[in-house]
């Protein structure tokens, strides 16, 4: 709703140079990070390092003494880039979430630090760094200090296996999704340690609730993850994406009606794992002050928040990978990549261009799911602990099992009658498109029922 008609409040716009600086940094920073990922991810494979040494540096890779050192250097720089990417993506997600929430709440939101408040997260991070680092006297000092690092490790390790593009993955493990599920479980260790070591009753409450929640929701998440694994026949992330196609009716979410159910279950379970409303009981600030974070201050607090917002990106990326086709670009199949690669040992420019395209598609899909997560947070209220447990064990787990078994039967059916696959794909895509259109129309009707109008100039 726009401001009420009686006393509308004036908007202030930023001066021109602020806008320019914001645009500059806002474009250069992601480009630099994505470019780093783009260039360095393929270059960490030994074959590519050898080609690089041969073509670019002019040495013979077998005899050159610094080959392994160069490989190590590439890996180190890539690790640094990925870590920075994680941090920057957390900050940018904070900015996006605050922007969206302020618009949903008829507020102006961040608008001072940078045009549209784009640098507010940097200001917040710097402020948190300067705060006093308090450790409660009666807490367990070692665990209190160590807990944030568990959480951060669990978060940072995920970026190793995220498929940013066709060959843009730091390590294409053949147990990709299994690795991701196990590594994100480190986060719950960190949360529980934080809650327990704070030696505060409210923190303990938050920690216990969170542990119960995350561990419970690992089950339906894990079973729901098995559905695309079954359909793809592999645990590897790139393998799962390659088993899908680029068009919506070729995505796993739409080819198999039970995979749609699994997608919904997975999405809900990821919300719970990331402590997002409607599952943000561990940090329910109207009940527990800040839950397990109550005693943390300064940089340790910042680490938790970094991980929480970065987790949005992670959960969206995994959803996009498993169910929405990942980086698959329409009209570009594997033969196009092979053709563009060229004959030389280092890939040709066209191949790099295709990589950029695939990364753009991946980022777009991830941002779409991320927006959905943010949207849900600011609309729905919180559910209670016992209702959350009921939802998990009485509804999500049985449905996940059913969809798993049904997917097995589905695969047998598809093996017998291959036309069923694309047919259901197209049918479900049409249904989804119809639902989207109906949703848009209803939203428009709601807005005009209140006497308002759709006004995008208020951005």
């Amino acid at each position, binding site marked *: *709703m726009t*401001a*009420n*008609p*009686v*006393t509308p409040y004036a908007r202030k716009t930023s001066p021109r140079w602020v806008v320019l600086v914001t645009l500059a940094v806002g474009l250069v920073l992601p480009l630099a990070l994505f470019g780093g990922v783009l260039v360095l991810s393929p270059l960490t494979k030994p074959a590519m390092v050898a080609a690089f040494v041969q073509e670019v540096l002019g040495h013979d890779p077998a005899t050159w003494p610094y080959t392994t050192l160069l490989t190590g250097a590439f890996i180190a720089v890539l690790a640094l880039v990925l870590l920075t990417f994680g941090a920057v993506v957390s900050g940018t997600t904070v900015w996006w979430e605050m922007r969206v*929430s302020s618009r*949903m*709440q*008829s*507020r102006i939101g961040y608008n001072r630090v940078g045009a549209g408040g784009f640098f507010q997260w940097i200001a917040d991070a710097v402020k948190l760094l300067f705060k006093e680092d308090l450790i409660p006297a009666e807490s367990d000092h070692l665990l209190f200090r160590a807990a944030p690092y568990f959480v951060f490790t669990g978060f940072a390790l995920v970026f190793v296996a995220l498929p940013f593009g066709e060959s843009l993955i730091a390590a294409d493990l053949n147990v990709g999704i299994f690795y991701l599920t196990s590594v994100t479980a480190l986060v719950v260790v960190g949360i529980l340690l934080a809650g327990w070591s704070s030696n505060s*009753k*409210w923190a303990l*409450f938050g920690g216990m*609730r969170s542990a119960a929640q995350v561990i419970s929701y690992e089950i339906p998440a894990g079973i729901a993850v098995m559905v695309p694994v079954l359909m793809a026949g592999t645990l590897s992330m790139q393998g799962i994406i390659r088993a899908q196609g680029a068009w919506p009716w070729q995505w796993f979410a739409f080819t198999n009606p039970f995979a749609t159910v699994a997608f919904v279950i997975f999405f809900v379970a990821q919300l719970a794992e990331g402590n997002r*409303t*409607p599952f*943000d*009981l561990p940090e*329910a*600030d*109207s*009940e527990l*002050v800040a839950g397990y974070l109550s005693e943390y201050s300064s940089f340790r607090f910042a680490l938790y928040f970094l991980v929480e917002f970065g987790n949005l990106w992670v959960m969206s990326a995994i959803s996009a990978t498993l169910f929405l086709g990942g980086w698959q670009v329409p009209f570009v199949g594997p033969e196009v990549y092979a053709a563009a690669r060229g004959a030389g040992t280092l890939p040709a420019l066209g191949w790099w261009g295709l990589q950029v395209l695939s990364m753009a598609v991946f980022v777009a899909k991830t941002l779409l799911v991320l927006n959905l997560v943010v949207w849900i947070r*600011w*609309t*729905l*209220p*919180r*559910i*209670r*602990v*016992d*209702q959350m447990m009921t939802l998990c064990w009485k509804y999500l787990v049985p449905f996940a099992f059913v969809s798993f078994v049904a997917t097995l039967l589905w695969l047998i059916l598809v093996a017998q009658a291959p036309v069923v696959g694309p047919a259901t794909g197209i049918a479900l895509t049409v249904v989804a498109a119809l639902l989207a259109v109906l949703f848009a129309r209803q939203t428009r009707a*709601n807005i005009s*029922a*209140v*006497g308002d109008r759709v006004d995008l100039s208020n951005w």
Partner: protein
Amino acid sequence: MEKLILRRVDRDNEEMVLNFGPQHPSTHGVINFIVETDGEVLKKAVPDVGYLHRSIEKIGEIVGYPGFMPYTDRVDYVAAMFANEGYAIAVERLLKLEVPPRAQWLRAVSCELCRIASHLVSVGTMTMDIGAFTPMVHGLRERETINDLIEELCGARLTYNYHRIGGVAFDMPGGWRDRVLKFLDHFDPFLVEFDRLISFNQLYVKRLANVATIPAALAIDYGLVGPNLRGSGVDWDLRRDLPYGAYPHFKFSIPVGRGWYGTPGDSYDRYYVRCLEMAESSKIVRQALESMPEGEITAKVPRNIKPEAGEALGRVESARGELAYYVVSDGTNKAYRVRARTGSFTAMGIIEDISRGLMIADLVALIASLDVVAPEIDR
């Protein structure tokens, strides 16, 4: 302090005793609860009030009758017009004073606008306690306009000091009536949107339905008033049953809880009664503005108010229920005793008995649905 209260709390080995407050994002004001929990389930929640006790009743014996009016704002600063009006009615009864009709109409308009503002705060903070952040901001956005309108009327946004003994202090400024009507035209569909956003949301309903049900007989016995009482199913409203001021001239209905999603008297009923009351208040303001009589805005009151010896009780139907001022006069120009009976005080009394077996999240919902504010409890 906690040790003294813990005498009443039976300790077992596995139970935790916690302080829920006094500084807490959720309790509405500075209130403390000593809760004894077994995991998430409460065994007992003992309220511990008095953090905001400012001895207003003692001050009433010192400052004289007109001088006490600003202090009445602080008895309930969320719905201050009613506090003003109650005291004014009590002293006017002592003086046997007739308030001119325009003043009564102005009192009704300002009070009903204040009721909408207070319910917006109450309903908004309740939704925020349940975890939905957006409805509260929407409600406060509307409240900003009401604050601006009342600021045009009397100069203050929160503690109004608008009513006087014998009438009101200021008349409507030029164009104010049109601005109020324009706001109400914007506000009525807002309530529909608000309901669509949160009131019928199943997550929200499941948090509140059948939680902390207070049956009607218990509500009367514990002295609950206002939306708490009506939410339990008792059809009682001072504006209709013991009418005062200009209310006999307006047509409005009284929403009574009937278990929309659960049993009558649960937290959802108390919440939804407030939502419906906002729509009714909007109707009253429209009728009052339309039928506003001309005339004086205050009766002739001597400068030095010296009522003859006696006692009077002045009641109003505040946003939180019945707010009654009991004023005892001994013939001098200072009151002998001023007593403010507030709805939140008795609402706190019921929490200890109702909260057995609730979860902590439900305790938050209960406190929010009873709409207690600390200044009313402690005065």
